[in-house]
């Protein structure tokens, strides 16, 4: 008896050739499976691609998170530029965080140092990370920093305060149309990224949730 008769798929027997597909079928399946795996990989490749793209083009106001190594940024002839400083606290970040000066007048091609005041208002030691952003975004690639508090994390004891410096320069390539730049920092509470404290925080978080619910009820 033809072995194909015992196939659980009735039409395998019924089809004239005994096979459903022609020769190319298996190849098509293989190619499509490769495509699926390839696209899944591509979705993860989008992450570094996005960062590289933003870094090269300066789109999205992304600023490099490391000190510049270029020593030849200072030039004789600069032009006037206004810089406004903006500080944000990410949600549930209780620290006081504000620029020492709201705005300064600087020259392109010259280094300037600005400071931000920060204070841990809680009764526990906390760690913070500041993330910078520049507007208009096409100014971002022209901003270079020799040092910045955003390059590292800040750990403050309860009640501790500090002045955080940023030493920056805008190169002369900055487009003429840009007369003023907003430099913004958002400060995030990253204490919980420490695994030991994670559980502690979770308990606290649950407590908060319960409290929130009560208030909505």
């Amino acid at each position: 008896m033809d072995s194909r008769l015992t196939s659980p798929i009735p039409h395998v027997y019924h089809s004239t050739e005994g096979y459903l597909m022609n020769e190319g079928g298996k190849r098509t399946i293989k190619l499509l499976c490769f495509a699926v795996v390839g696209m899944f990989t591509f979705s993860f490749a989008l992450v570094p691609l996005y960062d590289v793209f933003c870094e090269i083009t300066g789109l999205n106001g992304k600023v490099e998170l490391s000190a510049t190594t270029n020593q030849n940024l200072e030039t004789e002839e600069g032009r006037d530029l206004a810089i406004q400083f903006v500080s944000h606290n990410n949600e549930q970040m209780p620290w006081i965080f504000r620029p020492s000066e709201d705005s300064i007048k600087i020259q392109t091609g010259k280094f300037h140092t600005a400071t931000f005041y920060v204070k841990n208002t809680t009764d526990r030691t906390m760690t913070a990370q500041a993330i910078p952003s520049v507007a208009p975004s096409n100014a971002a690639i022209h901003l270079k920093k020799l040092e910045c508090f955003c390059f590292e994390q800040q750990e403050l004891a309860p009640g501790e305060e500090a002045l955080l410096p940023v030493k920056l320069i805008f190169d002369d390539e900055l487009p003429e149309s840009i007369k003023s730049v907003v430099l913004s920092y958002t400060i995030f509470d990253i204490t919980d990224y420490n695994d030991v404290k994670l559980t502690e925080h979770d308990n606290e978080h649950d407590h908060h949730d319960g409290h929130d619910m009560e208030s909505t009820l």
Partner: protein
Amino acid sequence: MSAVIESHDHEHHHGPAEGLTRWLFTTNHKDIGTLYLWFSFAMFLIGGAMAMVIRAELFQPGMQIVEPEFYNQMLTLHGLIMVFGAVMPAFVGLANWLIPMMVGAPDMALPRMNNLSFWILPFAFFILLSSLFMEGGAPNFGWTFYAPLSTTYAPPSVTFFIFSVHIMGASSIMGSINVVVTIMNMRAPGMTLMKMPLFVWSWLITAYLLIAVMPVLAGAVTMMLMDIHFGTSFFNAAGGGDPVLFQHIFWFFGHPEVYIMILPAFGITSHIIETFSRKQLFGHTSMVWAMTSIAILSFVVWAHHMFTVGLPLAAELFFMWATMLIAVPTGVKVFNWVTTMFRGSITYETPMLFAIAFVVLFTIGGFSGLMLAITPADFQYHDTYFVVAHFHYVLVPGAIFSIMAAVYYWIPKWTGNMYDERLGRLHFWLSFIGVNVTFFPQHWIGLAGMPRRVPDYALQFADWNMVSSVGAFLFGASQILFLFIVIKTVMGGKKATPEVWEGSRGLEWTVDSPAPYHTFTTPPKVT
């Protein structure tokens, strides 16, 4: 296209197995098509019930019926269920039923995988729906699940949501591989690619889109999973990630996904308009090229969903022009449909009514899409009810109407019985009026500034919201009539002839009605 069937080999035919196991273990494309269609109908009713909750809450300003938290869950699940549970499985069901018959193949290429790709779906939606009863409630971040709403601020059930999306994705990918392999390798002799019916063409293109973007969706939810549970920072700014990156990845999937939900509708509409105009379709080849260009363009327009996130001017201009470019191939298609009807001997049976409504209302949705594509205008329209009106116009009288048209058009072939024409037309007119009363006023309240995704709104939007809700209740109720008509047709009715419609074209009309359990075990010759 004309086809000659050499012989019907009735000797070896054996019918389906009996009982429940027939459906559980079936590898027959018609059985699986039926399963998909019933499943999507069930999801359509569940997702529709959620829409009723939403419209009931919005009937009047102020909080009336549900808590805002629950409203957000309804909103999210309505979107997810309609997209992944109703529209996509309905198209896969139609593909299963029709593609093998249209290309003259005995079945789908990978029948057991076909069974698997259907039977994992109910589990995916069981998991998703069960999150409603979990602590913290169901997902509440909208069907677009933007991070950090879906990561940092998500309810604990988000992990179940992620798992469920993975399963839906796996199901879609398997279904698509099956469709492509069937079309590429199992066509009857003489069925060249350009002779292929447009529904098959539309599904070939759709399947390629699915294979390209469903893995990207899987990647996006995997990154979310890692951010939530494994301490990575893909979308967390504090850890060096970027929430905007999520939107880029999501819409890289999301925009082709939008066309996945409309391309098969283009195919269906072409067949129906051709049949009831009693003319050959105008511009078969240009239809194929139009669909191909729409599919290719869909990969380079994703950021038009994100005009307000702070894109640079160059990107806003590029995505604006690229988006507007899509109007060209879409215009070609609408032109071809209208030209096919021009001087045709048109009769207005239910499928034709739905198809004509599709052309008109989908075009309205297309035009509001063009308005949204204009970047400066989008800054005004973004996240208002205008957007809600736009995408419901392309999805409800677009995708959903085409599915209803397809059901009326092919149900005589599936069941062997004609549906009740009088009830069918009643269903059409109720749905047509319901859809327009629901969604047309949303254009106005959107332009007036009502934000989307809100359970409460300012008083000046009250009147049109009430009108919109009344329309929604009418549309919702008329789908119960649809269910009744389908059941009535399955139970009995006037017997259908093999060709069913005067002037129907295509291989599926050359086999008996109802279609035998096995068709084209001997390939037909297509000339």
